[in-house]
């Protein structure tokens, strides 16, 4: 009778919001690629969704506390994989981040987000009382910093950046004195003049374009400009599904991956975009609810960290699409094309559902 109890206690609103986002993604991918050689790629995304769902079900069925026991081991395996792709991985778009297993290509960096959330939650639950001390900060930095460093070496700055919300959330949840935050800010600012000359030319351009969108309209600025045209031309109500011209004529770069929201914005207008943002916000609210109702601190931390990861990644992606952040390759969770990203995000949501469904002390 355990199985039926699990079904009863499942967080259906969360599952519905997630599936809604994935459906929006599949339609947008279909629309974005219908005009070019990648037409039909949405079917691949459906297959990935099926695979991701299986993984999610497995994760929901097994108690999150079991996953917590395995967290460090899994984290270690992912780190090994990250090290492996660094030497033997397939390079796509200059990033050595792909692991080829038969017909499938996997990005271990996406899985690393999931394991990082888990190990940080375990660490917070086990080791932290009150506020974080320096020793704890360092240990957490090692746990989260190891995958981040390996990913940064690929170099996949976009994915590395998505670790920032996770780490930030962990520090906030763990509790940290304000002086540490101020100190971190000062150190960060001091690092700017050291880091800036080390950046590559295109990276500098992307950052400068955020402050000066008119800069280099055919180069780096082109992407943001085309994104704005696609979004803006959607108006309030949008042009209708498969009616967007900017993405279908390939004016929009990366239209089915990182800029998929611009495609959706063109076809469904402000109303559509507001709905997507609303779904994400709903997910966050469900995550907080799950965190509050969790029967132990571990569950609370898992929900908050996973929620911060997914929402943080969403904020980075939307920031890029709007030109508020430098153009870096960060997919919109659930929506953007890509198997690894979808699997990782669904597995994250599965953890929240898992915690939520086991909120009652048995």
């Amino acid at each position, binding site marked *: 009778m355990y199985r039926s109890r699990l079904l009863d206690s499942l967080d259906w609103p969360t599952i519905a919001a997630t599936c809604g986002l994935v459906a929006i993604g599949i339609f947008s991918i279909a629309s974005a690629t219908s005009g070019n050689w990648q037409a039909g790629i949405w079917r691949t995304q459906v297959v990935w969704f099926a695979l991701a769902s299986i993984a999610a079900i497995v994760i929901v069925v097994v108690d999150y*506390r079991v996953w917590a026991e395995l967290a460090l081991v899994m984290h270690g395996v992912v780190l090994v994989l990250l090290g492996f792709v660094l030497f033997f991985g397939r390079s796509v778009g200059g990033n050595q981040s792909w692991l080829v297993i038969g017909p499938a290509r996997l990005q271990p960096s996406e899985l690393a987000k999931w394991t990082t959330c888990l190990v940080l939650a375990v660490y917070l639950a086990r080791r932290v009382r009150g506020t974080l001390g320096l020793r704890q900060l360092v240990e957490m930095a090692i746990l989260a910093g190891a995958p981040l460093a390996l990913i940064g070496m690929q170099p996949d700055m976009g994915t590395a950046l998505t670790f920032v919300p996770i780490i930030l959330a962990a520090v906030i949840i763990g509790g940290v004195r304000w002086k540490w935050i101020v100190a971190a800010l000062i150190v960060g600012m001091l690092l700017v003049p050291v880091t800036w000359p080390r950046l590559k030319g295109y990276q500098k351009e992307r950052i400068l374009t955020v402050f000066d969108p008119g800069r280099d309209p055919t180069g780096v600025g082109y992407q943001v400009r085309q994104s*704005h045209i696609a979004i803006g031309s959607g108006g309030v109500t949008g042009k209708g599904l498969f009616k967007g011209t900017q993405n279908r*004529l*390939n*004016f929009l770069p990366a239209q089915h991956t990182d800029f998929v929201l611009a495609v959706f914005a063109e076809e469904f207008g402000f109303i559509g975009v507001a709905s997507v943002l609303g779904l994400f916000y709903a997910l966050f609210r469900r995550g907080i609810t799950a965190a*509050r109702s969790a029967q132990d601190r571990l569950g609370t931390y898992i929900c908050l960290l996973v929620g911060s990861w997914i929402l943080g990644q969403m904020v980075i992606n939307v920031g890029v699409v709007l030109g508020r952040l430098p153009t870096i390759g960060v997919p919109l969770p659930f929506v953007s094309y890509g198997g690894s990203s979808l699997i990782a995000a669904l597995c994250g949501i599965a953890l929240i559902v898992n915690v939520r469904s086991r909120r009652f002390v048995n």
Partner: protein
Amino acid sequence: MDYRERWELKDYLIGRRLDRRILTLHVMLGLALFGFVVNFWYLQGVHGEEYKVLAENNRMRRVTMSPTRGVIFDRDNLVLASTRPSLTLWMTREDKHDKLPQLERLVPILDIPLEELQARLEKMRGRPLFEQFMLKEDVSLDELAHIEARRERFPSISVRETARRHYPDGPVIAHAVGYVAQVSEAQLANSEDLSAGDIVGKSGVERAYDDSLRGLRGWQLVSVNSLGRQIGDARIEREPDHGDQIRLTLDMEMQRALYDGFGTEAGGGIFVDVKSGAVLALVSTPSFDPNLFADGFTQEKWKAIIEDPRRPLHDRAIASFYAPGSTFKVVMAIAGLEAGAVTPEHTVFCNGGKSFYGRRRLCWKRGGHGWVDMRKALAESCNIYFYELGQELGIDAIHKYGDMLGLGKMTGIPLSGEERGILPSQDWKRQALREIWYPGDTISVAIGQGFLAATPAQLAVMMASVASGEKPRAPSLVQGLNAPAERLPVSERTLEIVRAALKRAVDRGTGREATLGQFSVSGKTGTAQVSSTSAGVDSNDLPKAQRDHAWFVGYAPAEDPTVAFAVVVEHGGHGGSMAAPIVRQVLERYFNTEPPAPAGGEPADEDLNKPQEESGDVSIATSR
């Protein structure tokens, strides 16, 4: 211990502290989401309409549809210029087929070296891949047949049809009809109707009537993707308005006869209808092939034409001016009789030379003409008679009648580049040379030398005027209404005397070669001095570049003139020997006395090249 019990349950205190921290996360996310919503509203709600326009511009491209240029006919509806389809060979660059073997197979067919094809293909690197590579313009059907026969061996080759201006008789009509080419930057700046890449007339009729020939371009809207590749069907916004046909006054048979008549000589000639001013033939040699400009004109070909010392692009019929020589005696005769300086019966004794203002002037006839009156002086071109007449008249009276007959000003022929020549006067010299007029200057002008200069067009118009007794009429090239004639303010008696003398000049005098059995010609030969060394020396003994230019002007038939002409052969020596035979060949076509000679056929007349004993003038060059 059960895995579930290893984890600490939350206590109240942790719960409260946690709520604060969750609130921090919540606020951070809320701020970001609020910012996003505002930003999306700004883009979609506030500026949505503007971005819609931008999106349309992104997507739709206006492609011009070129109108077909109007056909140009001669007076008998023979095609002088038409637009014909032309086949261009292209190579698709984005397919998967190997390019090199295909290029290698093309080498023997197109007769283009492999290195050149490869070099041109290499130049396309960096251009969008869907842009095709042009292998050859205007391929022949023969070349195409070789490719089509083995189509499977040329998978990347495609053929496209374009419109191309075609002149069936290229060099023959080059200066009259002109040529077309892509519009220049300067023309673009001056016209609102033109856009880059338009084909416009650059000279001749093509230029003069460009507005009606060109037509009006239409355009269509095509959807393009981000690479500019067309997708879907085009939507025609405006059909092109094709150019008008133009029927010229030119007579292709006369035109060809005139062109052939020049042979390898340089010069210009023009035949006009006496009654209407319609141009029947207009030729300048050496000529060029206007078809070359329609082709992908290579830099080398262009340089070859521009740098040719014989200046083939220059229209010698309207834009070159030469001393009119003895042909100017027509003006002198009219001026003398009309101004009352001489009576027709007034005689002058010519003994071959006479001093004027301290300089000895010669008649071309060493022994002299003896007693000459106006008729004989004009018919036999006695210099001494006209020297004295010039002395009597003075330059300003000469200027008055020259001006009346159209010299020193443009004829108004609707072709660009016309020159006005020089009809000197006291005022002219003061202004142009800042010198006073010396009486000696008049003596030179009296026999058509000195400062005088006229174009063939001017002299043809002048002769038409003499023939009809009407004021000079602007030559026209297009069939149409003509302005009503105005009488020349010259007495009929004067004109009769001049006309009779011009008839005699041809029948027995300097223009004998133009005489034909069935019809008679009135005219006057002339010699434009090139250098002072030519004085008194038989032109044919001089090197070509120092020989004088030969004129023959006149009209026919003598009794009831319908056609007037002026022909100049550069360095032709004697007007009678070089220019007159050319005129005769054209008049043969005009009067249709002979079936058309096969193209390239030599006009048969054994003594054409024999020097004439009575040709032109000899005078010592005038000093300024």
